[in-house]
């Protein structure tokens, strides 16, 4: 349905040059491009839109070729029929909301065009803003107008570049729902760039993780977040604890493998590598359970004794650094600190399921 193979040397004049080399295939749903800033996500969207010309590759949508370096095809920006929602909205400041949306409507009579604007505005619940200027709108309203404007052009594909980064949490949640409904109704593919986990999980039918211009893992968002396959992916999706270790032994009877990660050992799900081999493992900081007592009868395969080294307190969460020879980051609620009476120097046990220790290639 939608296909983009893009090779491009990026930032050759800047401080951080890197080669973009991606191959993305999207179905009819929402495809998420996930990655930290500077990973090249926006460049992918810009190449699809025609703002950025790849050095090599092919971009096509439903049989229509936008770009093909082998035949020298490069469709001009204005002929690609793209709906683009920019990170900073880019609503035209000298147009009213109505005028902004009208601007994108192609080949319609004036009356039908105005009718379409009214439909879009009421669908997004911003009918009252029609005669206002963008500067008089709230962040959420601006975002809705940007969505309406992109949809107004009757696009063949929607490109959304971190569209919700500038709105508050409550608005974000509502808009996520609306975006997913809009996608289902319109039936056109959406390419959605984000570095926010909840957006990716709630919207993504498929997800590509980008790092330094390359795709490092593909799958559904949940699959990737629950089991990142390599250290770069783990870093990008936010696995805070990454260790390089040696495989000590395989315990065939309970299906686990023991890995030495320096000063301590962890049991992980069985892996098909010879003993003595090196392996990278990742543990998400929220997958670690803390206990003041040493639990012996527990389903957690790993019970590690450590000492609280550092407590980083934020308003709604806290992060501990627990050392048992190597440092673990543990994410808990501020209430837990009070209930367990945690201080720097407190002895503590960490409980980690074998399944929560991800094997990273």
């Amino acid at each position: 349905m939608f296909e983009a193979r893009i090779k491009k040397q990026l930032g050759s004049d800047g401080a951080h040059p890197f080669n973009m080399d991606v191959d993305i295939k999207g179905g009819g749903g929402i495809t998420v491009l996930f990655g930290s800033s500077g990973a090249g996500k926006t460049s992918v969207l810009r190449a699809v839109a025609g703002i950025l010309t790849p050095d090599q590759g092919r971009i096509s949508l439903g049989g229509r070729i936008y770009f093909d370096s082998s035949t020298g095809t490069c469709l001009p920006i204005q002929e690609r029929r793209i709906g683009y929602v920019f990170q900073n909205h880019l609503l035209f400041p000298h147009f009213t909301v109505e005028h902004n949306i009208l601007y994108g409507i192609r080949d319609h009579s004036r009356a039908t065009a105005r009718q379409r604007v009214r439909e879009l505005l009421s669908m997004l619940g911003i009918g009252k803003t029609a005669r206002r200027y963008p500067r008089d709108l709230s962040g959420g309203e601006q975002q809705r107008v940007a969505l309406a404007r992109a949809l107004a052009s009757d696009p063949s594909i929607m490109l959304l570049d971190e569209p919700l980064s500038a709105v508050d949490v409550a608005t974000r949640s509502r808009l996520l729902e609306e975006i997913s409904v809009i996608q289902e109704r319109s039936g056109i593919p959406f390419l959605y760039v984000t570095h926010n986990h909840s957006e990716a999980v709630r919207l993504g039918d498929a997800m590509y993780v980008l790092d330094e211009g390359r795709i490092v893992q593909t799958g559904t968002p949940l699959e990737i977040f629950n089991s990142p396959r390599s250290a770069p992916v783990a870093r990008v999706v936010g696995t805070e604890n990454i260790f390089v270790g040696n495989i000590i032994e395989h315990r065939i009877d309970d299906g686990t493998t023991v890995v030495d990660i320096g000063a301590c050992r962890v049991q992980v799900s069985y892996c098909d590598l010879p003993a003595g081999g090196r392996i990278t493992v990742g543990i998400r900081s929220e997958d670690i359970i803390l206990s003041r007592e040493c639990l012996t009868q527990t389903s957690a395969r790993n019970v590690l004794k450590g000492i609280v080294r550092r407590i980083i307190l934020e308003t709604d969460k806290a992060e501990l650094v627990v050392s048992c020879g190597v440092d673990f980051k543990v994410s808990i609620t501020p209430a837990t600190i009070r209930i367990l009476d945690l201080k720097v120097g407190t002895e503590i046990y960490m409980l980690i399921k074998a399944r929560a220790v991800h094997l990273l290639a």
Partner: protein
Amino acid sequence: MIWQTLRLSLLVVGIATILIGLIGTAFGYILARCNFRGKDILDAVLTLPMILPPTVTGYYLILILGRRGLLGGPLYDLTGWTVTFTWAAAVIAATVIALPLMIKSARAAIESVDTEYEIASRIMGKSEWETFFRITLPLAKRGLLAGIVLSFARAFGEFGATLMLAGNIPGRTQTMPLAIYEAVASGEDERAMWLALILTGISITVVYLTSRLSRPRKSA
């Protein structure tokens, strides 16, 4: 006589300002948005009339447009007509002298428009031309207007190049600044004063009206 001079001056400056607005905006856009070899040289050449003494610019204009000039020569041979010592020459002199101000203002005004707006417009299916007229131009409006007013004021006061190319023929090429010079030189003090006052009054009015018109709308 004063009114005739004023009428001629306003006609010359009016046409010059229109030409300056169009040519200056076009060059401003090219300098702001296009990248090509020799752009710096073009920029320098276009700035020259602002740096050189107007008499020198006028002298070059004679070399180019005069009866035996680079372009003026062939034109004279062909038609028997030459632009020197006509009111059109006064228009050309005023246009060339004030153009750099407009180009500089237009370039700055257009550069201040975020190119992402233009990209957004292109993505919405608009051509480069439509994008220029409906997005870039309106967003650069205030800076362009300021440039036009500055150029108008400069063209209105133009003396040196006009004298060189158009001469000082009362009723035909004598604009306000030239008339003031002649009045002072021939001791007609009262006439000089009235001319100077009228010129000052018009300049102040134009600048004042423009600053009122371009005042930002109250926003929430």
